Every structure is written in structure tokens, then in C-alpha cells.
């Protein structure tokens, strides 16, 4: 599983960070950083949830 963020769409509102702070971090510079682009398979449900709750549809979970 690979997490891909479209940074042109992302507006750094940190909703994904509330769901999975070990994977997504919006820092003081107002940019989103993906801390782990290949989380383990056990995290799939959480990653799907982050993708579905991102208001900008900026997160893709690829197989």
C-alpha cells in the first residue's frame, strides 16, 4: 500500500493528521508531510478513512 498526496489540492487543514498522526503531519510551515508513504497493511482501514475524509480529495491509497 502506498499513500500518494496531490499537493496541488491539499490545503493543509490537517484533518488527515487527526486521523493518523503517525502518517500525516502538517508542520508550522503550513505544509503537509507524509511521514510514512508505505504504512503496513494493518493500517489500510485507517488510511481509507483519511482518504475519504479529506475534503479536497487529495489523498490516494494505491495498492
Amino acid at each position, binding site marked *: 500500500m502506498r499513500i500518494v498526496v496531490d499537493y496541488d489540492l491539499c490545503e493543509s*487543514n490537517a484533518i488527515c493528521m487527526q486521523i493518523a498522526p503517525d502518517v500525516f503531519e502538517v508542520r508550522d510551515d503550513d505544509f503537509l508531510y507524509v511521514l510514512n508513504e508505505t504504512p503496513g497493511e494493518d493500517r489500510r482501514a485507517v488510511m*481509507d478513512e483519511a482518504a*475519504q475524509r479529506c*475534503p479536497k*480529495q487529495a489523498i490516494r491509497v494505491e495498492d
Partner: protein
Amino acid sequence: MPVRDSVTIVGASLAGLRAAETLRRDGFEGRLTLIGDEPHVPYDRPPLSKQLLAGDWDVDRISLSQPERMAGLDLDLRLGQRATALDVPAHTVDIEGVAEGYDGLLIATGARCRTLPGTEGIAGVHTLRTLDDGIAIRDALRSGSRRVVVVGAGFIGAEVAATALGYGLPVTLVEALPVPMGRVLGDTVGDVVAGVHVDNGMDLRCGVGVDEVCGTDRVESVRLSDGAVVEADLVVVGIGVVPNTEWLQGSGLTVDDGVLCDETCLAAPDVTAAGDVARWPNPRYGEVMRVEHWDNAVEQGAHAARRLMLSDEEAEPFSPVPWFWSDQYDRKVQMAGRPRADDEVSVVDGSFEERRFTAIYGRDGRLTAVFGMNRPRQVMQYRGLLERGASWSEALEFARDQT
């Protein structure tokens, strides 16, 4: 926990799809039916007034899920089909006139646009709710529209007007209130929003209504309540929405500006509702509310789906802090909370002049809301404080620590 073999979701849009995804994620293996009267696979509405209208995005970019993901949900997906009646005691829903049984039913039929009386049948007058609406307005903007009037400077009207200006057309934005969104944002912040429109070349007319949309078969002009006549060959009306509840007549559900639910989103035994169509008492505010925001459709869709799988004892109230965003020109606006127009307002970073700031709202010693212009991260931080029920002084202290 109630045993369920089948769940039917009516309304195949944001709340309905997110509800279906939640059920599968939580391990529901029964039959899952998703019914929607639009012909399209579930798509996202916010881009309709933004990227799609601007012509930056094609239709295929606004889908709410990827085809593989949709297939993985193993849905009985019925697009282009309408639910026409509900019988709560019998546990049946009529789809295109044919009764079908369900164990659990989730109502997510959303809302549709209010129209201006007397404009039916006049070509060139539009509302914007569906993909088809969005394409029609985009095509009008692309193919030689010369003058645009937008009625209503709420979020959607303001976005449409801003996007139309991007086509290089003269645009008049008409708002009945003295200050755009004044009822939500208060006059101080509303004035800043008005300023952004004017900076960008908008002909903004506040405090006036529309008396008449003139033209026999095509729109020619709009006559305002102050007597002014504005020429227009494209008019977009954004004056609010009405919930889609007609099909529930005679169902026994209480319908009053939406489907009335209890605190847990339950409307009747084995029936829940979510999104723009649902009205429920939010215990956080002690107020019955219906929220027309994207995030609420997602959160309530998930909550109402889970509610169907819980007993009355297990069920929990739905008590969100409402939150929305709006993108106008190059400004990203966000607000969380539930302010009143006369709340105290304090700018905690940035400034109105820069058009980049965070403002917090308070009343009776409590933080009630936060508004940000190009400050998404900060809005979410204060949203965290709102969720904790922070006091006004706590919020000010938090603001001091940030600088």
C-alpha cells in the same frame, strides 16, 4: 446488537456513499443497497462551483471514489432510480413504485436549490446543485455569455460569481443582506469578505433584493428592489436549499425542514438520516439543527450508518462542531463552530488588510467559533479547542502562545 442482513441507503451522494464505506469498513457483510436518482456515479459537489465551473477540471476528476474501490464495496448500486415511498412499520421502501424490504434504512436524500418564483421557463436562469447544473453553467460561461448576475452572496453564490469573473466577464453579485454572510460571520468579518469581492472587480450590490427577472423566453435583465436594472444573459440563483423529503409523505416520520431525528440520528426504529436532509438535536448546543456542509455529510453519514448496527443502549449522540470551507478567488475561507452575529470577535493572527487572518468569536466567556482566511491549519487548532468546550480566556491564552 440488532441483527441485520440488509441495509438500504437512499441518496447516492456524499452522506450515502460515506455511510456505505463505513458499514463495510466496520465489517458489515450483508446486502448493501445504494439508491440514487441521479444517473452519475457518486460525485463531489464542492468542485461544481470551483474547478469544474472554471473549466480547470473535467467531469472524471470529481468522482467520490475510484472504480476499484466502489467495486470492493460490493454494493447493489441503483443509479437513476428514485425512492418514492417508505413504510416504516412494514420495513419496506418503494423504489420506482416497487416495494422492497430492508432491515435497516438510511435516508441521505440531501437537498435541492430554492428557485426564484416566476423564473421557470426563462432560458439562461440557473441554479447550481448537480453535475448537470454545473456543466450547463460552465458551457454558458464558455460559449459567449456577456454579462452575469448572481443572486445571493452565500458561499455558493459567492463562489460562482468569483469563478465567473475569472472568465473575464462583468459580474454583478446581488445580496439582500447589508453585509454578505453577515448573519453567519457577523458584520466585521463579513465586511472583509465583501472587500475581497470588490478588490477582485466584483460589482457587489448589498441590501437589495430582486424584483423581477426580465425576458420572455431568454433572460435579458434583472430589476433590483432599488430600481436599478442590470443587463444579463446568464443568471445564477443561489438563495438556499430545501431538503428532499417529499417522498417521505405518509411514512410516519416527522418531517419539518428535514427529517427529524433523535440525538443519535435515529428517525424511527431501524431508520436513520444523515447529511443535508437530517435535522437532529445536537447536544453540544442544545439546539435542533440541520447542517449543509460537506464535512457534516461525511461525519453524520458514518454516525448514522453505525447507529443502524447498535441497540438503543449502545447508541451515542452525534455532537459535532460544524465546520465548512469556501474557496473564492485565491482566498481559502474556513469556519468552525456556531457563532451568532453579535458575538465578540478578536483577530488572533494576521490582519484584515492582508486578507490573511484568524478571528475567534466568543460569547458569555466561551469560545463559540473560529474563522480563518488563508489559515486552514489554525482553524483546525481552534476547532480542537471548540471540541473541548474551551473558554474565551483559554482561547486567548492559546493565541498568545502561538506568537
